[in-house]
């Protein structure tokens, strides 16, 4: 038994089955990410005025590394271009060229994930410290020269430290969105090229210490959820493209048309993953 139009397009719709399937699937994906973006909007519009950490639940700005994010965007867009080039190479019957572009695509995907992992790790070592006087500072810990990840106050107590060395952040200018005046002292520090100031804080003065993890603030919660799910899509897509391009590429010999269709469908998914990032990047990094 053979399923009709599994490879050849159906004359009246002009599509083969998998192409209909992937578009439908992408429609559901739009709804999935749509729900996450809606969540982002709702959480943000109901956040109190003022910026975190000055206001406990104010919406944070400028916590993410924009140059790295921009570079990662470029990496992902490059992979979107190369996946099309790979498909075109197949259409032109150039298998070796197809392989090259496929390899670049998968490498870009892995590069993207590596950079993202680096960004995550940076967040896990970044802390918000609430002091007993009610003020909050953010910064990295310096415990005997190393910067510990995912500590809580319990870990500080377990390490039997009396005072904690903290590289306190001087807020970068993205902390203050367009139209918001940058305080004089911060402006001066920036001009002097200063990003951190080391401070010693007595442990007994600290009322809470939390890394930049999802449970610390709704911003981190939605940032990690969206970027992690997007990363999962990147990973899944990269695995499938790797399979098509290398392990399962024997189909090129037995059934070239179906193989080319597979690459087209995989490429459509890949463009979608790229597109999600193109929305995600400005929303969480820039706005």
């Amino acid at each position, binding site marked *: 038994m*053979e399923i009709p139009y599994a490879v050849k397009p159906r004359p009246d719709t002009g599509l083969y*089955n998998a192409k*209909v*399937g992937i578009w439908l699937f992408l429609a559901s994906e739009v709804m999935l990410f749509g*729900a996450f973006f809606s*969540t982002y909007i*709702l*959480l943000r519009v109901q956040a109190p005025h003022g910026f975190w950490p000055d206001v406990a639940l104010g919406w944070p700005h400028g916590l993410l590394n924009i140059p790295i994010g921009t570079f990662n965007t470029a990496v992902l867009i490059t992979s979107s271009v190369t996946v099309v080039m790979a498909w075109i190479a197949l259409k032109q019957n150039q298998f070796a060229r197809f392989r090259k572009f496929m390899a670049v695509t998968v490498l870009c995907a892995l590069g993207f994930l590596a950079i993202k992992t680096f960004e995550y790790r940076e967040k896990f070592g970044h802390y918000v410290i609430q002091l007993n006087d009610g003020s909050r500072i953010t910064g990295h810990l310096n415990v005997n020269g190393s910067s510990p990840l995912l500590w809580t106050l319990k870990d500080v107590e377990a390490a039997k430290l009396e005072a904690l060395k903290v590289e306190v952040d001087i807020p970068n200018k993205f902390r203050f969105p367009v139209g918001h005046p940058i305080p004089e002292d911060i402006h001066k520090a920036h001009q002097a090229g200063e990003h951190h100031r080391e401070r010693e804080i007595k442990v007994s003065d600290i009322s809470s210490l939390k890394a930049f993890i999802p449970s610390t603030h*709704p911003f981190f*919660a939605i940032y990690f959820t969206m970027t992690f799910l997007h990363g999962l899509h990147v990973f899944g897509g990269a695995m499938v493209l790797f399979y098509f391009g290398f392990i399962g590429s024997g189909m090129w010999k037995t059934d070239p048309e179906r193989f080319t269709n597979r690459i087209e469908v995989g490429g459509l998914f890949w463009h979608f993953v790229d597109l999600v990032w193109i929305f995600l990047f400005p929303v969480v990094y820039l706005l």
Partner: protein
Amino acid sequence: MQTATTHPGSGAAHADSHAHDHHEPSFLTKYIFSSDHKIIGIQYGLTSLLFLLLGFMLMLAMRQQLAYPNQPIPIVGGLLSKVLGNDMASQGVMQADLYNAFGAMHGTIMVFLAIVPLAFGAFGNYVTPLQIGAPDMAFPRLNMASYHFFFWGGVVMLASFFIPGGAAKSGWTSYSPLATVADLNNVINGQTLWLIGMVLLITSSLLGAVNFIATIIQLRAKGMTWMRLPFFVWAQFVTGFLLLLAFPPLEAAGLLQLSDNVLGTSFFLPTGLVYNGKQLDVSGGGSPLLWQHLFWFLAHPEVYVLILPAMGIVSEVIANNTRKPLWGYRSMVYAALAIGFLAFIVWAHHMYMTGMGTKIATFFQTTTMMISVPSVIILSALFISLWGGSIRFNTPMLFALSFLPMFGIGGLTGLPLGLNASDIYLHDSYYVIGHFHYVVAPGTIFGLFAGVYFWFPKITGRMMNEFWGKVHWFFSLIAMNLIFAPMFIQGIRGMSRRMYDGGATYFSVGVGADPGILWLNKFITHAAVLLAVAQIPFIINFVWSIWFGRKVDSDNPWQATTLDWQTPTPPPHGNFASTPVAHRGPYDYSVPGAKRDFTPQDQPN
């Protein structure tokens, strides 16, 4: 059947007959890991019928508690306290936690594990490719994966009864923050498993929806134009889109709530949340209203997922048993499409009481009134279709006919709930329970029973017993009404839907007097027992007929026109003996001048 040898050229039947010579498929590949839409349909059907029974049993235990609060549950009480522990059922008496768990799981099981898989997974899978003249679904292996996700989703849900703390107990709606704080002692609690189970079930539905829509778009037989599709196929098509687009937001919401429960985030937890006199150690800043929006964005379209396939089945049965074309087929199709669109913009009528504001409430009240119009169009067309028909009152037809007024009652009693002002009074009362059960129980489930009796001979090659079918129908219809009609009265007189002793404490201590509705608790419970008894003939009839029912005398025992009946019985792998071509509309019954009172779709002019 003697199909294979007569058409050696046609791939499907040919391959089937030869498969036996070369490699006999093992039991595992034939029945468990099958990619044949018919086997998958049967898998869905049997699994979901079992879940239907389980959901009903949970309800019986709850009804016992409502009617006779704090008395041991007869028969199963001892077993429950032994298996689930004394926290749940002390000396066989249902505790509040168990009542809440059963309530939440009754809703979840009935909606996500029984009715949707039966209506969409079972009937949709078995019948849709046959009716459009396709050899199988567009993506057979995806179809198999869809069933297996569903199965494991069900296993996770069942397992949640037996873990410490018991199953989810925050209602099938799982409102936050209740769902997050309901069981703080166990990190992996019933709610966690509920969410994991839901993610699996949603994945299953999404795979199914993609497959159904692609199949209907791509695999229609030659000549099977859109307006020649049987209404059942249209209903499945719209249902597919509802599932495809409405379920992902719930998947998102489920993941976010899972993160709230396990990772300690605050997506749905407001600032300063106090529980048991203690402020919770969470960041806050989340929105409980957000969960409700995401949940109902699925759960209202879900109502139409429940009802549309039943309407499809009922339409097929009515056209067949009135022996005339459906009246207003085109209007019905457009109405179904209108429902599919409007279903996405009515969700917040479940949320009038949340204080989301009168302007928003007015918008949703308006769209809610609008969506009743296409539903009424379909129901009216079906009623008018009866006019002048020479009606055969067989079991499927009796169920289909009962569907019409029962769904009518369910729909009309929904109007006061859709209106902002009257909903303030009726919200969260037994009136609501009566309303949606009229839609789903004697509505959808009767439609599904009609389908079971109607397609049983195609699936098994044997008829179900007519007499016992009619007994099943008669007592079910009586019992359903005795159960759900009194709930309207209870609700109007102020009985809340969430009280685990049926309002005994509330009315004696809180209000001071019973407004004359507590006796109805006992009445309804006895009617529910009658409903249980009325299902015994069905269960025996169903199982017995598989092996011992009267054999069908032809491939088309109901003299039906649609392509599903123009196949061998049961249809072989690949379905059709020769590739079918549609030459006419789906309901050419009693065509003037024709030899017989039905002209199959594939019969050339």
